[in-house]
């Protein structure tokens, strides 16, 4: 498990003056971030708006280049176009807006887009596309037009597009921010399955605490610096500290915290058990 897949080494990132976002981002978006993501991990990156968490995601697959320090993927430092391409074969990415990442007018054609770019044999692409669509439970929709799907379904198609490329790692940049609660749940179930059943390393950038709780490890970013790194229990037990970074805690955690329970309680079940235990009764 200690095999490193993505490694940030003292990474600082400052948006270029001629970059689109320059007006807003005159200060460094990330400062001295050192972080190693291990193979098979499910890491949630938490932070409020403008904390630099999206920048972190884009650095993972060479969409952005660090101003200082290095980002390496399996030891490859993407300093040339060829190497950047190699990195993108290892780390796939899913963006926030499902509409802006779907390329084709038919679901299965869109899933095939990545493998087609990799130059894979047609029969193999067919197999991968079918498998990927079954994996995200969208196989029955393969002949549909993407614009007729719901947000959660579109996002699952986007995830299938990455699965079909057979990347070892998938970075999701707020994939649920534009979805309704049901779509959010669909996407989270899919992401968890990718990690648990297929062993794909997952980096989930989010500002929803309830999603972060489901990860193996939570990294908190504030003002471009990495301020917390630990298991959800470790991170969410420090309620005051999280509030200081402008972050909420899951409701169950907050309730227990207010009741004076110091252990990091993460979900409703744990909360119920803990309160029941303290009351000395069984549920």
């Amino acid at each position, binding site marked *: 498990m200690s095999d490193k897949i993505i490694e940030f080494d003292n990474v600082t990132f400052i948006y270029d003056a001629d970059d689109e976002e320059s007006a807003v981002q005159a200060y460094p978006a990330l400062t001295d971030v050192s972080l190693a993501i291990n193979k098979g991990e499910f890491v949630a990156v938490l932070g409020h708006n403008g904390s630099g968490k999206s920048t972190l995601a884009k650095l993972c697959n060479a969409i952005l280049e660090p101003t200082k320090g290095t980002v390496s993927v399996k030891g490859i430092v993407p300093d040339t176009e060829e190497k950047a391409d190699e990195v993108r074969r290892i780390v796939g990415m899913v963006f926030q807006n499902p509409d*802006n990442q779907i390329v084709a007018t*038919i679901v299965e054609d869109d899933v095939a887009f990545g493998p087609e770019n990799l130059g894979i044999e047609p029969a193999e692409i067919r197999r991968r596309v079918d498998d990927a669509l079954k994996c995200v439970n969208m196989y029955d929709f393969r002949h549909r037009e*993407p*614009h007729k799907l719901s947000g959660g379904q579109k996002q699952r198609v986007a995830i299938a597009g990455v699965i079909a490329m057979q990347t070892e790692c998938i970075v999701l940049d707020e994939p649920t921010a534009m979805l309704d609660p049901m779509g959010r749940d669909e996407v989270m179930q899919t992401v968890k399955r990718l990690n648990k059943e297929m062993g794909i390393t997952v980096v989930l950038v989010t500002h929803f605490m309830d999603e972060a709780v489901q990860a193996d490890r939570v990294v908190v970013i504030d003002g471009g610096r990495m301020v917390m790194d630990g298991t959800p229990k470790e991170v969410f037990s420090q309620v005051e500290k999280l509030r200081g970074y402008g972050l909420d805690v899951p409701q169950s955690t907050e309730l227990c915290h207010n009741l004076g329970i110091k252990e990091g309680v993460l979900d409703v079940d744990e909360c119920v058990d803990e309160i029941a235990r303290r009351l000395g009764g069984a549920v």
Partner: protein
Amino acid sequence: MIRDITIGQYYPGKSVLHRLDPRMKLILTFGLIVVIFLCKSFFSLGLIALTAVFAAIISRVPAKMILKSLKPIVIILLFTAVLNIIYTEGGTVYFEKWGIAITEKGINTAIFTMIRIVSLVVISSLLTYTTTPTMLTDAIERLLSPLKIFKIKVHTLAMMMTLALRFIPTLIEEIDRIMNAQKARGADLESGGLVQRAKALVPIFIPLMVSAFRRAYELAFAMTCRCYTGGEGRTRMKQMKLKFRDFAALFFLVAVTAGVIFLNIKFEAVI
């Protein structure tokens, strides 16, 4: 609802025409259009008209749909018919007044042109009824790929067409959203004269443009992430293979062409 719009006028089906290779369908359509203009007599044109009817029947596209595709050209049909009747002279004169003569040749030419235009529209709309826009773009890309030797970026052009098709519904939804947003702030889009209404569209098109550029930017990111580097070294999941029916269709085109040429020679020319 706006979500339900389909791009193009594809009519889903499983007929022989639907299953033909889209490349062959393109060739067939263009071939037939050329042949339509080769027709000189009513007999050769009749053969084309029969071909069009035959194709329409085997496509299993309802007659209502095909008639619908003829609706926009009714005015053009009437216009050309009138012009032909007035300006073509020759043969028996049926009517003469105010310097206008309606002659046998004029009427013949008018009917001839009408049949020609109708066949043309029926044949070309059968192509779009039985082929999805995606398949068409694919077919165009593959048919034009020999142009690569002239350094024409066929793949890039086809990709642009596909993306344009893909984003039509997205942008329509966006327009809808912006219009509602502007209406909510009291924008008046429905009253006033032409100039006023055109002016009212400005606050809709500017946000639309801005958002379209933002989408393009994000899309480019997403495509880069999926290792898109242009047409070089790309493979395709859906291979196009010519089957027996495609060659049969090609043979059909050759036969129709031969028939038209034969009938042209055998019978008197109208035009």
